[in-house]
């Protein structure tokens, strides 16, 4: 559980009114990006301290929330204000001093708005981390400088790679407890790089820091003048995320048909949906799947207001020149750039419920705006997420286990490999008896 140094105190934080230049001008605020990132780790890594500091230093914690955490700390008999109480939302979490579920937290600087998916770190919460990872642009992995790379680090890195989070920041934390030692930091960095070479993670940034003292969190550290890189916040504000989207392969899953029953808009028939990837422009030739019918884009609008183009992740309505039959679950793309189509699909799946996945069982799946049934044909292997060993003798997948499966669906899906597009390359598995979401799947491709 929490050691003394892990318990952040409000008193150690700087004056919240005197930091970060939080002067929002109206124009600047209307020109901010959105960055979603994931933090994974346990209390022992100083994760709560780090999040507490980011929220506190960006003035995202209010006085009454601090007061509530303070009075709760007193009620629990804590010697000092425990900033983890700010982030542990459920009564059971506060009582047991653990984080059970993904919590979403928000802060902003004049450059960006940030959504933190704050995930518990232990192996029994792998499914929660996968959930948080599914929408993240960036993952923060915390390493305790005293302990270096441990099993948990490997697990978190593997999930980052599996869910294809484009950017990874490795925070080598608690540098204050190793005398700000450069060699210790470099040894950890080298260790990490060595094992991370097995993963597909394109962009890794290492930052030595102390969340407790604030070194390299918001401001550059004076204690580590040997480190020339950015502070964590500077990196979060500036990491290039616009290129994370696939702007090449136009995919538009039709979600809802907007059809006014009025004389004024008698001829309006808009296909509502969110652009999964690529760019659509007025006048573009498109093909509707599965029918294969071709037409041209007559107009693109949001709520009746027309625009020239649509790009991810915009939600728009598209009208076509020709009256062709399109409904929910269909997909618009370009005649010369279509997704794969098939009923036999291989995927990596993370199992998310107590009842194991059974080969031969039928499930419902949700993929883009489409729903189908499937049968699990084969479990190729179960992956040990700490050793990365593939157990080909595995017969089922239990809660938090990951494996490669083949499914056959009742109708063709239009998909891209997950490595190309996270939206058209992912699906969830739903148990038909309980209606629960029981699996998260990332498509590898057609079964060979």
């Amino acid at each position, binding site marked *: 559980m929490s050691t003394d140094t892990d318990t952040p105190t409000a008193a150690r934080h700087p004056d919240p009114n005197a930091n970060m230049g939080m002067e929002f001008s109206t124009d600047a605020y209307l020109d901010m990006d959105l960055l979603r990132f994931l933090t994974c780790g346990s209390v022992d890594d100083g994760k709560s301290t780090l999040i507490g500091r980011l929220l506190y230093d960006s003035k995202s914690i209010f006085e009454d929330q601090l007061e509530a955490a303070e009075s709760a700390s007193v009620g629990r008999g804590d010697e000092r204000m425990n900033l983890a109480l700010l982030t542990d939302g459920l009564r059971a979490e506060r009582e047991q001093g653990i984080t059970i579920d993904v919590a979403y937290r928000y802060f902003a600087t004049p450059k960006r708005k940030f959504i933190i998916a704050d995930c518990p770190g232990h192996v029994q919460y792998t499914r929660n981390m996968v959930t948080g990872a599914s929408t993240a642009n960036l993952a923060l992995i915390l390493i305790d400088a005293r302990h270096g790379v441990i099993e948990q680090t490997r697990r978190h890195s593997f999930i980052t790679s599996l869910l294809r989070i484009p950017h990874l920041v490795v925070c080598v934390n608690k540098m204050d407890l190793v005398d700000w030692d450069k060699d210790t930091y470099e040894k950890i960095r080298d260790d990490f790089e060595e094992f991370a070479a097995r993963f597909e993670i394109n962009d890794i940034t290492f930052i030595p820091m102390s969340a407790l003292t604030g070194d390299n969190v918001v401001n550059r550290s004076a204690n580590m003048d040997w480190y020339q890189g950015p502070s964590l916040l500077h990196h979060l504000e500036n990491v290039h995320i616009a*290129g994370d989207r696939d702007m090449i392969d136009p995919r538009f899953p039709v979600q809802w048909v907007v059809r006014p029953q009025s004389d004024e808009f008698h001829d309006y028939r808009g296909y509502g949906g969110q652009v999964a990837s690529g760019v659509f422009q007025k006048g573009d030739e498109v093909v509707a799947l599965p029918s294969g019918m071709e037409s041209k884009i007559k107009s693109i609008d949001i709520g009746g207001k027309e625009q020239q183009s649509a790009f991810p992740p915009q939600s728009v309505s598209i009208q076509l020149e020709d009256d062709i039959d399109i409904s929910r679950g269909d997909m618009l793309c370009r005649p010369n750039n279509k997704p794969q189509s098939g009923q036999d699909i291989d995927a990596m799946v993370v199992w998310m419920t107590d009842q194991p996945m059974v080969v031969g069982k039928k499930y419902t799946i949700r993929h883009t705006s489409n729903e189908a049934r499937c049968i699990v044909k084969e479990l190729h292997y179960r992956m040990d997420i700490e050793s990365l060993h593939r157990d080909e003798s595995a017969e089922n997948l239990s809660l938090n286990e990951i494996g490669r499966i083949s499914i056959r669906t009742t109708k063709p899906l239009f998909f891209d490999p997950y490595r190309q597009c996270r939206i058209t390359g992912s699906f969830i598995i739903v148990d038909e008896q309980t209606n629960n979401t029981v699996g998260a799947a990332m498509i590898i491709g057609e079964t060979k």
Partner: protein
Amino acid sequence: MTQAAEPISHYRLTHLKALEAEAIHIMREVAAQFERPALMFSGGKDSIVMVALALKAFRPAKFPFPLLHIDTGHNFPEALDFRDQLVEKIGERLIIHKVQDLIDKGMATEDPGPFPSRNRAQIPTLINAIEEYRFDALFGGARRDEEKARAKERIFSFRDEFGQWDPKNQRPELWNLYNGRHRMGENIRVFPISNWTEMDVWQYIMLEQIEIPDLYFSHKRDVVKRMGQWVPVGEAPFGPRDGEEVINRTVRFRTVGDMSCTAATDSPAATLEDIVGEVAAARASERGARMDDKNSEAAMEDRKKEGYF
């Protein structure tokens, strides 16, 4: 073929537009996956933003659902007037379900607590509306930044036939895939603006030039000091209590709930720009002006488990 000639940087989405796109997607998903949704509408700014987003999701067609107001009878008259004007302007259907009717039937009771709050009485009223109209999905304007219990709530939040939320048994929500499968009698609460903060809501109102009730802007009002906060007074049962002195002050409301449990703040903010500046400098959370959350540390979690939003 008209290939994208513009540079990639042109296809940039600001955070407000990204949040808008997410909310539209969620609303359409609910319209497609459920038979009888409704949009909870109170006349407060969050529900007004929800209506603005629904216009984006479904216009030029009508909403594929009605608006539903759980009328506590403790509303600010200004909020009710605004509600009626907005509904008329957009030409959508409004269902009003009154807490008083449920109290008259003995199905809900007045809170005997220190304030004449009807927060708890809203719960049976809402559940009664769900049963009467057989709603299977209700849109709410709750946000995860409002309160700790909400930080862990899903966007599709399942409720059993008693309307209860089980925080330990929530469905995983991944990518932009929402699983709305449910049994008869079960319903979901859907929170399309879960990922918005108070600041985002105000900025969006400013960006989109959305009309909101005058209550949110600085005005003169009779208030009394109660529990360290400026509490608006009006006709019974909202009059001053023994020993309370009525003061006419320049105030505004950051949040508009029931008159009985919403405190005003001293403020000269007369424009949206002023309000945004004030929110940026604020040192107290929005729900700090809601006396209903202060009764216990887990007040919101407890109310949600019973079926509150």
